[in-house]
């Protein structure tokens, strides 16, 4: 029964949790804290699913349960139709932990080769993918240096590359942009969108709301171990009774006329303001400009 997907999930379901509960216990087995309570989730193929919540909400616990690193107190999990402890299903999963825990005496190439070997990839495939991924995460210049000489962000990039070495179908990213500068953070977000374009499923855990909003199709919000809400980002963020109209080159007089017309039609102008750019967009533009100069 371990490899069978429950009958009530669709063929598109990549990840399914039902009533997932986790109590952490002390050395005598007595429960000390309930980290997760009755979580139900259904992540579908090809979507980017965000797990949102403040610190201690249960995001990382959920991911560890999905990966079989810890075991549920109650409830059930199915990952790619199999039990999380099923060894074969792990062949199709990529995981980037909250912090990249890697062997510091290996260099980037050796690290990728090691994880490629654990996925039993042929030598040529390992070499080819390692080369592409190292280039993709921008570490080509430092590929031969041991990880102990890397900055936190560089180690994080290697972690991301190892997460993708097996060309996984399901990718679990726990705070993927943590410790990264805005440039790399932007690139990582681009990479995640690329993965989606390739038909991969991504489960993204983060408390950086901007990242989640930019990337995710659907989200689940956790607070103190309980699921608070779940749904499409576009639907959840929609304010039903407010309509925004963006206009370019509108004079003050014309703006006044529009305001009067709105009121005449029975509407209420909540506010008018100049459109602002996002700080990330501004930052990236400046960086790109300087890059192009050099």
């Amino acid at each position, binding site marked *: 029964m371990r490899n069978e997907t429950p009958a009530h999930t669709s063929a598109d379901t990549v990840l399914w949790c039902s009533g997932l509960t986790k109590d952490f216990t002390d050395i005598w087995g007595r429960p000390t804290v309930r980290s997760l309570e009755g979580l139900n989730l259904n992540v579908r193929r090809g979507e980017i699913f965000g797990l949102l919540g403040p610190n201690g909400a249960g995001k990382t616990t959920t991911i560890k349960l999905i*990966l079989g690193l*810890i075991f549920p107190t109650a409830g059930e999990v199915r990952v790619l139709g199999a039990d999380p402890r099923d060894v074969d299903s792990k062949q199709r999963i990529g995981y980037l932990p909250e912090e990249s825990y890697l062997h510091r005496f290996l260099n980037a190439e050796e690290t990728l080769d*090691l994880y490629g070997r654990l996925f039993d990839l042929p030598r040529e495939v390992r070499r080819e993918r390692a080369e592409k991924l190292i280039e993709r995460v921008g570490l080509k210049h430092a590929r031969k240096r041991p990880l102990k000489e890397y900055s936190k962000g560089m180690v994080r990039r290697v972690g991301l590359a190892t997460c993708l070495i097996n060309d996984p179908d399901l990718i679990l990213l726990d705070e993927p942009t943590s410790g990264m500068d805005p440039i790399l953070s932007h690139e990582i977000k681009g990479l995640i969108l690329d993965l989606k374009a390739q038909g991969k499923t991504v489960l993204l855990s983060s408390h950086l709301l901007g990242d989640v909003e930019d990337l995710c199709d659907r989200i689940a919000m956790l607070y103190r171990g309980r699921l608070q809400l779940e749904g499409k980002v576009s639907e959840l963020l929609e304010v039903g009774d407010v309509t925004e109209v963006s206009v370019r080159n509108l004079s003050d007089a014309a703006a006044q006329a529009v305001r009067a017309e709105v009121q005449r039609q029975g509407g209420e102008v909540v506010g008018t303001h100049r459109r602002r750019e996002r700080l990330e967009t501004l930052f990236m533009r400046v960086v790109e400009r300087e890059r192009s100069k050099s």
Partner: protein
Amino acid sequence: MPVFAALARDVNADDRFAAIALVWTLVGIVLATLLWPGGRGRRLARQVFAVAVLSFREGLRLKVLYTVALLALLLGGLAFFTDADGTHAGRSFVILNYCLSSGEVLGAMLIVLLSALSVAREIESRIMHTFGTKPIPRWGILLGKTLGFWAIDLLFIAGLLAFTAVLVRAVPLRPEARSAGTLVKSGTWQDLRRNALTTREFEYAHNERGGATKMKMIKPGAMHTWNFAVSPQFSRGEDVAVRLLFSSTATFASHIDGIGIKIGFDNETPLIHTVAKVPQDRPFELFLSPEQLNREGELRVMITAPMKGRNPPSIVGGVKLGVAADGLSGNLVKAGLLIALQGWILAVITTSWSGVLSFPVTVALGLILVLGGEMSRHALDLMQAGAARAQTLGIEQGPSGLQQTVTNQLRFLLGLLPDFRVAGGPTAFVQGELISAWAVAKAILMMGLVRGVGWALPGIILFHRREVGR
């Protein structure tokens, strides 16, 4: 003399065959599973190998390896500069004893420290968060780590054995074996090899009832004869050692004077006939050439105890005939194999438990297994030696009931521990006794498969069920 050529004689041939066949069958099954083309086992073998290579590289970086290696070299070097009893054989024994014993003990410490570090530290440092999410079963991770650390142990053992061989060969040879100030024989490499570096397969004398005579009490002035059947093939073309062991019931002196030794065939001129001052409680050997034994017949070794005083002490004597078996290189290889087997068992046990226990607790467990087992075994040896000596000396009142009970219970408890001396190991080599293929097979079976796996299994099962992501 080919390595592993000779087999022990005190084991039923069918049992011996069955044991060796079982070991090789198991090895064959494991190899077939791992190497079957396209099989799941083959994939697993590659994954395990990847973990092993990683552990090997990790182990090479740790200072514990170099500290232990340096300590072993220092101990070996120290032995080289020890004069011992002044003979070549004595110096070689000390070198072999220091080097092999330090190899055994330090090798065990090395493997315990390396393997106790492995999984426990990776769980604490959370590397297991990444590692444990890859498609390799947990027991495969343990096996890979075990193999990696064991490879380091093998490297250490190989280096130590090479160092030992160099030291033994470097013993400066000089004239020795003087009698009343006259040089009897010069020290040559051949002498040293024959006296100290060749292990032997020993034959006990047969008594009238067809049994073996090992030790015998000889009253003052009396004589006892040990009989050995020999044939032209008996010597295997090498010198045969007559090994003698004496102890006195009256003195603890290092030597006993006035022991009559006569060795020869009936109604013929004795091959050796002397009255000698012999060492007490230490075996010594007299050699017979193959030419002297190139015949069918009954070789008699007659020992006469000295007549002294009004109420003189008795002499406890033992005689056995040793046929040359393995030389220095063969013996070093076997001793190395047995030390390596011990390392493997420890690696399997400690690595398995390191997935469940913290690093310090795992180290403590390993040390208890190695040192605790060895020390209690020595205590047991002492208790048994006392009882055996009492019986040998003819004291009617044997060991007390309580002592016997305690000894038996201790023996049972120790029987549950991995028995690191089950095959004799380096000690047997130093004592000049053949480490037989049977002994090695028995060590693999009993120490490796039964006790080693038995101790490791709970650790493997618990690690399989353990949450590594907390």
